[in-house]
């Protein structure tokens, strides 16, 4: 049987992926993962033997929410770099597009969608992470998808023509 620390170690690549998608910034993402790991190790005694992976996602999600709140209290917020938009035909373009579409979502919707689509959590697991009923998770996912589709179809007509 593998121990607590080993299991946390195994989750690090997925946590980095999730954090990167949440923040769009490699440094901020790794800081978030580092804080998650510190908190997980320090709170090991609080972990009640449930699904460790969900617990780590919960910590990271909460830390990110706190981070966004403290950002919101500051006067200036740095936007995602828009001055280096790639050529629409480059392979990067699709990635940039989905990145911007994700950035237009409400935090709870982005979190729900990423946990389901990118991290492969079940609706039930996401409900635990977000502390809401499963129905709420499903409506967050549905709204996220509606918003992304609207963004991709309306905001980037150029790309659709190229495709």
């Amino acid at each position, binding site marked *: 049987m593998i121990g607590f620390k080993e299991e946390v170690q195994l989750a690090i690549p997925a946590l980095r992926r999730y954090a*990167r998608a949440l923040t769009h910034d490699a440094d901020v993402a790794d800081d978030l993962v580092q804080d998650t790991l510190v908190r997980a190790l320090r709170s090991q005694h609080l972990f009640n033997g449930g699904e460790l992976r969900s*617990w780590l996602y919960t910590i990271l999600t909460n830390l990110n929410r706190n981070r966004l*709140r403290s950002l919101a209290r500051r006067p200036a917020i740095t936007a995602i770099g828009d001055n280096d938009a790639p050529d629409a035909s480059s392979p990067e373009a699709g*990635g940039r597009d989905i990145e911007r579409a994700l950035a237009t979502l409400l935090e709870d919707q982005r979190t729900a969608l990423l946990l389901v689509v990118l991290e492969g959590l079940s609706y039930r697991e996401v409900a635990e992470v977000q502390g809401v009923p499963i129905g709420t998770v499903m409506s967050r996912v549905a709204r996220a998808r509606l918003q992304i589709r609207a963004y991709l179809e309306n905001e980037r007509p150029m790309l659709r023509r190229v495709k």
Partner: protein
Amino acid sequence: MMMNKDLPVTDDELHAYVDGELPADRRAAVEAWLAGHADDAARVAAWRLQADAIRARYSNVAGQPIPPKLQLARMSYASRRWKLAAAAAVIVAFFLGGFAGWMAHDTGGDAPEPFDHLTAQALNAHKLYAVEVRHPVEVAAADAEHLQRWLSKRVGCPLRTPNLEAQGLHLVGGRLLPTPTGTAAAFFMYENASGDRFTLYCTQTKAPNSAMHYNAAEKAGAIYWVDSNVAYVVSGTNERKQLWKVARAAYEQIEPRVSQHERAS
């Protein structure tokens, strides 16, 4: 009797179908529905493309080598945030200094209600320290006995550190804070398994005993009461019901302390 497969297909089922959450006995019905409804089929296809784009954009991150600072074995417990903590201390000093100045200026007129200025202060401390990862407290829960003795001595009355394990809250530790009038306040921090934090702020006051009052600001809530010349503020979630439970549990454990104190004096 209508069979499961004959029920009309809902939007929830379309999402569940894409996410692999659809019960097996509905799969055929959804697929038949999509074959006959081009609009829904287009939505499902778009959702799949979105998911593919998200995975294509981010899945390589998980394959990258883990940087040294995220290696558990090598992870330094020294704070990457010491600069932030120092900056926070300056902000606290500035805020409290400014507040003290304002209080001093205002002594000629009506002093603000203790309810307002104490909860404002407790909430500010809560917001400042609840998000702190490495240095949320000065004295950790491991030294709980020392923490209680020290803060009681500095605040000037015997304090009790409530045990909130029944509420799923574990003591993180505590710290000493100044009040606007220059006296000392004790600040205890608790945390649940998901990392949500609650804090208890206590200081001596001349205000008369008061029942519990609720106040909310910027997604945080606070409950305030005064008992035997000590003001208490429990801060945490703005989910009022949950905060009440925590405050009540704290109150029930603090209250006997007061009667012992009264007997002793």
